[in-house]
């Protein structure tokens, strides 16, 4: 199973590895037998050299379709669920789509594409397609504003962090993720399961946290990833008590010390790592020492070809795991002249460690004092009764903006303690350099929304 060069996903699937499966809340499909099956009704040969939009609502069918189409089509664009028709139309044009693979064919008949192929649960295939090319993997960026951008990856690049670790790192793993696997963070886990010879348990958007955890436990999940927001919801749910994964991973948002400590207490037998990755820059690095931020010596070239630097406070990455380009008529340049991607993630050196402080565009200006909402949230989250928080800007006639913090407290926190907790949170913020005078207002709320990409929803001020 260890190959120096990836040609297509099917090379990692074969009858020699018994007992592998991929499941969702309804079904389980054997990965061991998958090479003899098709979820495209035997029409894979019609996709040879085509540009394919993978618009499959069902994650399980989508996963299997990916393993079929990879190595056959020219390119495939992974479509997360919930895109509107205007977005889809622009994707079709920008990526020169001529085939749509979908589990809901009817609405696509008028989409103006050459072919619509129905996808369904796998059945025995009569013929087999061979790997004939390195299919381009197109993905959508997870940005919260504007139309998503399309980035072009190769499977080699997407799997770079996985192959660098080697298959021995996580033997016999059953992987799960709170992400949808059509998004970068989720796809990483799907690829880890397929390439690493393991099994995979998919998320289900409509499922409660408690039901999801019960299913992960029942399926024997050993390795699991999600955003800090996903994990805060798990910690809040109280449902994690009997779940004991070996490896817990965070990515996609800043992992602050509070969430890392909370996970370490809840999963005492797990190794807990936080990874830095983005759809554009790929997987930068993973940190396994249980502390927020990352060692300063990661800046510079690394053994596996990922090179990082900090310019004007933002993290820049040049990497073989990065996307190759943006795709589309008005696609901007992905990298600078030296091949570095500006991640827009702002970092600050404190002692021997860099800490993520927020997004470049997210700064709140309070009468000239500039703060990142994430810094304030990190300070608030250190309070023992706080489960989750969101700092946001509110206009002020005096300073332009002030910061309002919405705070979710642990279940069972008595309302009578609110004023004390509020004063303690103000006190904590005062002791944090850089944000000592904010927030202006603290509100206690029942819940905070998380986007489909697993990130804290930040309402535009």
């Amino acid at each position, binding site marked *: 199973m260890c190959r120096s060069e990836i040609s297509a996903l099917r090379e990692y699937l074969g009858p020699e590895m018994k007992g592998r499966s991929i499941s969702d809340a309804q079904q389980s499909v054997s990965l061991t037998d998958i090479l003899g099956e098709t979820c495209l009704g035997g029409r894979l040969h019609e996709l040879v050299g085509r540009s394919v939009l993978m618009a499959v609502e069902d994650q399980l069918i989508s996963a299997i379709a990916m393993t079929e189409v990879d190595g056959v089509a020219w390119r495939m664009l992974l479509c997360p669920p919930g895109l509107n028709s205007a977005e889809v139309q622009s994707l079709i044009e920008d990526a020169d789509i001529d085939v749509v693979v979908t589990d809901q064919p009817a609405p696509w008949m008028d989409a103006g594409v050459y072919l619509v192929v129905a996808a369904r649960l796998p059945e025995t295939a009569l013929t087999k397609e061979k790997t004939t090319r390195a299919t381009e993997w197109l993905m959508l960026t997870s940005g919260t504003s504007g139309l998503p951008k399309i980035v072009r990856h190769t499977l080699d690049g997407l799997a770079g962090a996985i192959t660098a670790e080697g298959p021995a790192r996580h033997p016999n793993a059953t992987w799960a993720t709170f992400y949808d696997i059509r998004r970068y963070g989720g796809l990483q886990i799907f690829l880890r399961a397929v390439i690493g010879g393991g099994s995979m348990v998919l998320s289900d958007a409509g499922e409660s946290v408690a039901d999801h955890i019960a299913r992960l436990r029942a399926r024997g999940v050993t390795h699991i990833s999600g955003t800090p927001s996903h994990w805060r919801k798990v910690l809040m749910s109280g449902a994690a008590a009997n779940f004991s994964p070996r490896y817990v991973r965070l990515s996609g948002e800043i992992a602050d010390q509070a969430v890392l400590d909370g996970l370490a207490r809840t999963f005492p037998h797990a190794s807990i790592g936080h990874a830095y990755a983005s759809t554009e820059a790929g997987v930068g690095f993973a940190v396994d020492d249980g502390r927020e931020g990352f060692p300063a010596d990661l800046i510079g070239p690394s053994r596996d070809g990922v090179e990082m630097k900090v310019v004007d406070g933002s993290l820049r990455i040049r990497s073989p795991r990065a996307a190759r380009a943006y795709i589309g008529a008005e696609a901007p340049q992905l990298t600078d002249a030296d091949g570095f991607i500006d991640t827009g993630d702002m970092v600050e050196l404190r002692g021997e460690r860099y800490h993520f402080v927020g997004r470049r565009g997210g700064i709140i200006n309070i009468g000239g004092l500039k703060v990142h909402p994430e810094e304030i949230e990190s300070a608030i989250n250190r309070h023992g009764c706080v489960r989750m928080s969101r700092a946001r800007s509110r206009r002020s006639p*005096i300073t332009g903006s002030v910061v309002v913090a919405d705070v979710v407290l642990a279940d069972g926190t008595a309302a009578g303690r609110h004023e004390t907790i509020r004063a303690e949170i103000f006190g904590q913020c005062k002791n944090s350099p850089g944000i000592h005078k904010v927030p*202006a207002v603290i509100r206690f709320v029942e819940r905070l929304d998380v986007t489909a990409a697993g990130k804290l929803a930040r309402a535009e001020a």
Partner: protein
Amino acid sequence: MSVRVRIFEAMQQIAEEQKVVLPPLEDDLLLHETGFDSLAFAILVARLEDDLGIDPFTVADAVAFPSTVGELVRAYENVPV
């Protein structure tokens, strides 16, 4: 509780948080003598908006920011709720 009392309570709370020693609050005390900086006033206006449901300095374009404590209180009292 009167608007005046609520404003004074909020000011005392913020003074405590911002480590400001407030002089006795009287109508003719100049706001710049309270020890509050612009951020402290911004916080006061934000909290009073939550508490009283009004922000007199945003609803009307022409309202000048008050210069004394008494004018500040009247600015809130004069806004129709």
